[in-house]
Structure formats: C-alpha cells, structure tokens
C-alpha cells in the first residue's frame, strides 16, 4: 500500500438539514491525479457533497479527508489544498478579470513576485488574455466558467473541484474547457459534476453516479456499462428461418449468444433482432461470417449496441430510485 494518502477520501458522509437528508452515507475515494466525474439528477446531493469537501459546509456525520487532512477539524488547511469553482461561477460585476485573479491570488497566499507571471499563465491557458481588462458585468456568459477554472488552478492546488464547469458554454468553449481539464490529468486531482454526459465520458477516468444522496454506481464508463447492463447487445437485420434455425446457429458461434427481441418482418422479409451475450469482447466479425456463410439466412446489417453513459445514467438512477423505495434495500455503493 502506498504511503501517500488518496487525494479525496469520503466515508459514510451524511448531510441533513431542516429534516431533509441531502447526502446519505456516501463513500468514495479519488486517487491522486485522477479525474472523477460526479453525476446525478438535480437534487441528488452533488453540490452539497462538493461544498462539504471544500470545507464551506459542515457535514452532519461521516469522515472526509483531502490529501490525508481531515476537513472537519482542519478546514483552514483544506482550503489551501483545493481550487473550487461553484455552479454558475458567481463573479462580482464591478471587477476586471485580471484584478479579480490578482485578488484571489492574494487570498490564496501566492507570493506577489510569482502572482503576476502566474496570472498571465492561467489567462493564456484559459484563453482569457484578450479579455483580461474587461469587467465581468460586460463579459459574455461563456467566459464565466473559464474565469472559474483559471481561478481554481491559479494557486496550483493538488485538488480541483468544479461544479458544472461546462454549463452554458457553446461547443467551441466546451472543447477548450475539455482540453483544459484533460491537461490537468496526472498533475492535479479533478472532481467534476456535470449534466453533459458525453463531456464526462470524454474527460473523466472514472464516474460516480449519485441519486437521492446515495452512490448508485461507480467505475469507468466501460465498467459501468458492463455493471449496469450486464451483457453485450447486438442489433441484427436478418431474413430466413429465424425461429427454428437461428438459435442453433448462434450457439455455434458463442454459447451465451441469445435472441432477446424479435421485430416484425418488413416488406422485404427482413426482421430486426436484438441479441445478447455475456461476452465482453466483440463477437461481430465471427457472427457476421457465420450467418453470411449459412444459406438459410440473408444478413442485411449487424451492429454492436454501445450503451451511452446517458443510458447507464438513466438505468443507474432508476435502479437507485427502486432501491430507495424499498425500506430494507441497501443502495449499491463503491
């Protein structure tokens, strides 16, 4: 076991207020240099968890450590270890971009000597150099998340927490933010919450899905697909003796291959079929070769169905709801 503690360690975290439990026994760990995507529907407890991690909100119960430092008892130290960008990144309307970064840099205890060059560097990194003298009140909305990211990475903290960094951005800006976050991989630990699932899939090493304050799924997007759907799926368009001959033909290719759904034949006699298999590796090629060689069938199309993170998210959160509805049910975690 490595002597270096993980970047973020959350154990049985609970946050409740006014009789409502926002976070209910959440546990997860983020390794150093890892980029973790934090997913969940609105009100799932993402922002609350992030605020607790930053030391801004106190937890009701549980343990949170950032780089081995407990948040509850040493929140002053935690604030130096974290760069945080809140949702919508609120900014004071009367300040200029460079002025704001200078002020934040001073608060983050960056020495004056290093602050100027560091501000130039982050402005360049976040493509903000041309607007550095503009006041926030006159700045387009798309710049706000970038200013937030620039501010979060300004002091080069080991952990960066960003709440919805790509919200309200156009595709070009999303690309810039994605590249920016990817450039932090390995150097800083990043925790991002987002509703834009393809973004999370492209940027994050690992995903954590929460619902109703509980962790309902965690892992890499590929792991989650496997875990949530449990099997590989193929879409096949085929004509021929499906009911009698197809099951045996499929077993010959792979014993776990099974016919899950059969559609109605179209005008040309082709049916749309859904096949499932417990095998993770792609069976497309052997399947296509076997079916094409068999004179009983005519194949028009074969495609492996890759469930998107969106599908995983929907299934995982639905599963979370079902689990939560059962009084004795325990939510799946870790």
């Amino acid at each position, binding site marked *: 076991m490595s002597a270096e503690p993980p970047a973020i360690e959350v154990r049985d975290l609970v946050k409740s207020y*006014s009789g409502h439990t926002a976070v209910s026994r959440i546990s997860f760990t983020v390794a150093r240099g890892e980029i973790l995507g934090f997913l969940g529907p609105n009100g799932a407890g993402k922002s609350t968890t992030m605020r607790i991690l*930053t030391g801004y909100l106190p937890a009701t119960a549980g343990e949170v450590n950032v780089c081995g430092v407990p948040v509850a008892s040493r929140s002053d130290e935690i604030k130096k270890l974290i760069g945080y960008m809140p949702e919508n990144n609120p900014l004071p309307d009367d300040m200029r971009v460079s002025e704001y970064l200078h002020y934040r840099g001073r608060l983050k205890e960056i020495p004056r000597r290093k602050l100027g060059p560091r501000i130039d560097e982050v402005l360049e990194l976040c493509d903000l150099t041309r607007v550095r003298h503009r006041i926030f009140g006159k700045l387009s909305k798309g710049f706000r998340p970038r200013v937030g990211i620039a501010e979060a990475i300004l002091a080069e903290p080991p952990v960066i927490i960003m709440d919805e960094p790509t919200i309200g951005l156009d595709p070009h800006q999303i690309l810039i933010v994605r590249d920016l976050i990817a450039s932090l991989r390995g150097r800083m630990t990043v925790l991002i919450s987002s509703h834009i699932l393809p973004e999370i899939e492209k940027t994050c090493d690992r995903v954590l899905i929460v619902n109703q304050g509980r962790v309902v799924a965690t892992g890499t997007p590929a792991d989650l697909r496997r875990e949530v759907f449990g099997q590989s799926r193929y879409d096949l368009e085929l004509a021929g003796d499906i009911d009698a001959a197809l099951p045996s033909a499929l077993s010959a290719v792979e014993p776990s291959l099974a016919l899950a759904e059969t559609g109605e034949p179209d005008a040309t006699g082709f049916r749309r079929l859904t096949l499932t298999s417990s095998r993770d590796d792609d069976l497309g090629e052997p399947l296509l070769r076997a079916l094409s060689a068999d004179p009983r069938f005519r194949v028009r199309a074969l495609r492996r169905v890759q469930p998107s993170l969106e599908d995983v998210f929907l299934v995982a959160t639905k599963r979370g709801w079902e689990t939560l509805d059962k009084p004795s049910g325990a939510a799946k975690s870790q």
Partner: protein
Amino acid sequence: MKHFTTILGHEIRMLLVSSSTYIAAVLFLAVMGFVFSGVLENYSASAQETSPAAVFFQLFWLPVFFMVPLLTMKCLAEERRLGTLETLLTAPVSTTEVVLGKYFAAYFLYVMLWASTGGFFHILHSFAGDARFLDLGPLLGGYLFIAVSGLLYVALGVFASSLSRNQAVAGILAFTLLFAAIIGVRFVGTLEVLNLETMQPLRAAVDYTMVFRHLEDFTRGVVDTRQLLFYVSGTVLALIFSILGVEAKLIHS
C-alpha cells in the same frame, strides 16, 4: 488575520468604484450642507449660547439613518445573494476576516464622509475671519463622537446585512436598529414609569445608553471611558453576532 488587509483593501477599492457610494456621498454632503447653512442662518438672526459646531453635531442622527444603511446593506447580503460569499469562503479566509474587512471598509468610508464636512467649517472660517466661529473644542469633540459612535452604528448595519440576502431588507433592518439605538432609547428615557423607585436600575441603564447625552459630553470636551466602553463593547457584540449570522446561514443553507 493575515488576509484582513487584503480584504479591507479590496473592499475599499470596490466601494470607491461603486456608483452607489458617490450617490450616498452627494446626498450626505447636500443634506449636511443644508443643515450647516440652517445653523448659520440661526446664528446670523440672533446671538446663540453654543458654538455652531455643537448645534451642527446635534443633528448627527439625520445622516446616520440613511448613510449607514446605504453603506452597509450591500456588504454581506449582496455577496450572499450573488453567491460570491461561497467563492470567498472557500478560499483560505475565515468568516471573521471577511466580516471585519467589510466592516472596516464601510467604517473608513463613513469616517471619510464625515471628515469631508470639515470643509464647511474651513469655508466658514475663511469667509467669516472670526476665530469664535471655529471653537476647536466642540468641533474636535463632535468629530470624536462621530468616530466613536460610528463604530457601533456601522457594526449594526453590518449585522443587519448578515441576516438577510436581500439588500432592501438589510437596509430597512439597519434603519430600524439605528432608530431604536438613537431615538428609541431617548423616547424610553422620557417615560414616567422609569421615575419609580423600583425602576432605578433600568433608569440608570437607559441614561447610560442615551446617545444624545454622550454627544453633549463629547462636545463639552468630556471623554468618559464608560461611554467609550459602551460603543466599543456594542461594536464587538454586533460584529460577533454578524460573524455568527453568516456562519449560521451557512449551516442552514
């Protein structure tokens, strides 16, 4: 407290670039100019026993009622409404530093605005050419009273701002608190019931907190440490409650 000066400098700067500061300053100087010219008119009409400075400072409460809420209502309420308080408190700064930084910035501006009324006395002195109009004792005593009482009034404004995320509510609350502290106590002091034997301790407490009596003492050159203690302890208490107000809102947010 190493970030106190950073926050203070930033807050003063933000107050100086804010248009509302200049609106408040113009309003303040206009009102005080009218008050001052009114005082001078009285003096030109008939001989008066007290110096113009003493009469001028008698009306100190008039600008306090609108200036202090205007200067302080924004400081914490607006930060909370915009969400910038969250960004601020996730930096390595404490709530105490934030509240004190904002408090002293507002106090600095309050004192600066009052100091600018010194120009009225300078103009009077230049044009009248009579040293009697510029009795230094009541003048310095009056300004000292403004500086000392301002500590408490600005702290009450900051406290009101810590209780709400709505600037207007914070402003009205500050006005109410100031009205209670200045006029309310004076009104209570006139109640007949306080003359009863059993009410003597309460009578003593009301007398002790009577702001107009403090002003009278200061302009006569009497600086009573009990009065200083009243303002300083009141300020500390209001600031502690402001810090607790901000933190309590965080816990329940």
